[in-house]
């Protein structure tokens, strides 16, 4: 009970602080929107190539952009946490009965809400480009997007907690985020990739999540990609929350 109560408190507090700086929300939408505007049209002519998934260029590309929004909205959250550590807020709350897991979970849920709003804006902006919408597919896809946040966010918070300085966190985050991005098929579908690359990609949970979100946007609910994506991401999310919560329970910093 304490976990839910405290998670709600931390969530509300951190969302309140984020909402006070709406610039972040806009900045988070800008990058994928620029991709949509300047990179999306390139895919139109590629979409007739053999190996390119069905559904049209934007139904393939926008799901990738959503995963990218989730990726950028979760992998860098540790930086904000370091400044919270520096202000003493984190330590102050450690000397209260607050659930340690709530410290991670509350903040992660805030991040999920933020990138989901960004994703929603992106979807609306993509309709004029030719994105077709299946309401059920979009709702399930956003649920899966939330699970991606639960995979990546806790890892970033735990790394921030253990490392404690932006200087060391930045290269480490880059080293993790870049291969995750390239091996996920976000920009170009992995169906175009050589076998060896696709084999490596299959170890990346984001790859499966991206395939599932694409299938959902195309209303292919019975595709095995959907189940694989949801189960893989769900298991990874659970593991990530458990590991991070262990780090927060043991931390002395």
């Amino acid at each position: 009970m304490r976990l839910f109560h405290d998670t709600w408190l931390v969530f509300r507090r951190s969302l309140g602080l984020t909402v006070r700086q709406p610039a972040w929300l806009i900045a988070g939408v800008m990058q994928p929107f620029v991709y949509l505007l300047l990179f999306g049209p390139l895919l139109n002519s590629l979409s007739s190539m053999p190996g390119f998934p069905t559904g049209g260029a934007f139904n393939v590309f926008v799901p990738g952009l959503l995963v990218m929004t989730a990726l950028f909205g979760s992998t860098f959250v540790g930086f904000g946490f370091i400044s919270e550590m520096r202000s003493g807020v984190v330590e102050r709350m450690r000397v209260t009965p607050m659930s340690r897991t709530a410290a991670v979970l509350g903040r992660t849920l805030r991040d999920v809400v933020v990138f989901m709003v960004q994703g929603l804006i992106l979807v609306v902006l993509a309709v004029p480009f030719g994105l077709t919408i299946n309401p059920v597919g979009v709702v399930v896809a956003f649920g899966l997007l939330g699970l991606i946040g639960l995979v990546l966010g806790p890892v970033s918070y735990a790394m921030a907690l253990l490392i404690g300085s932006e200087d060391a966190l930045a290269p480490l985050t880059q080293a993790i985020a870049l291969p995750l991005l390239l091996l996920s098929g976000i920009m170009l579908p992995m169906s175009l990739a050589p076998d060896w690359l696709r084999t490596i990609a299959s170890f990346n949970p984001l790859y499966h999540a991206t395939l599932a979100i694409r299938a959902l946007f195309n209303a292919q609910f019975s595709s095995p990609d959907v189940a694989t994506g949801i189960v893989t991401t769900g298991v990874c999310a659970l593991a990530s929350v458990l590991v991070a919560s262990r780090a927060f329970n043991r931390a002395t910093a």
Partner: protein
Amino acid sequence: MTELVIETAGLRRTFGKKDEIEAVAGVDLRVEAGSIFGFLGPNGAGKTTTLRILATLLPPSGGTARVMGTDVARDPADVRQRIGYVAQSGGSDARMSGRGELVMQGRLFGLSGAASHERAAELVAAFDLADAGDRPTGTYSGGMRRRLDVAIGMVHRPGLLFLDEPTTGLDPQARARMWDEVRRLRETGTTVFLTTHYLDEADALCDRLAIIDHGRIVAEGTGPELKRAVAGDVITIGIDGNGELVRRLMAAQPFVREAGFADGTVRLYVDDGEAGLPLVLRILDGAGLAPQALALHRPSLDDVFLRQTGRSLRDTAA
């Protein structure tokens, strides 16, 4: 017998892969309820480490610590319910309002929304933050922010409040104000355990003091007790260059109990300062040395500190 709110025995804490760094090396402390207890020490002496162990932020490597009657290693969650902790860095978010931080703290301690708003209103009034309560704490002055930190520590009415360097960086007026707040806490029955770099603060505010150095308590008692233990008077000689020579020369004199040299000043601990002063002059003259300054003092806490740690607290202040 008065109730003890802090009681440690052989408290130890080591760091490093092979536990080779001993930050706290067997600390025995007894703090009585209802007092203001000052904890002094140079940087790196183990002061902060001890404080963090007592506040459940760091588990001890050895020994025991009971805080408010509960073992900190066995049941830290219970200790957290009964203590308030104010870190040196403070603990409020610059974007949050003071009232918002107080309400959040109340909620974390299990108060309902209404109860924590009520408690926040009480504290905002008590710590004279009513006008600023709804502004972001980033707009507060240093003194206001510090008062808010203490108010946050008091939300759940703890019996014991830890204050880490409560007045560092405050202007004299804000410092005096903070002293009043700390005394008021004692009047309402809260025990205050504070660390400080300012000996005048320790002297003016604290009922009892402990000095820690190299991870051990080197002196403990009331201010007057500690000063009496240094005994006699202190003669200081300001000298250029030949300080160590003068120290050795003086240490050899029968009327000098102890001589030390630090920061360009030789300090002599003597039983009778008035009688010692002319002797000192004559010896310096005989050796062809001319002091820049010569002074006689009754021992201050700084002398106690210097005597016990070999360092002046002022120079070790961060």
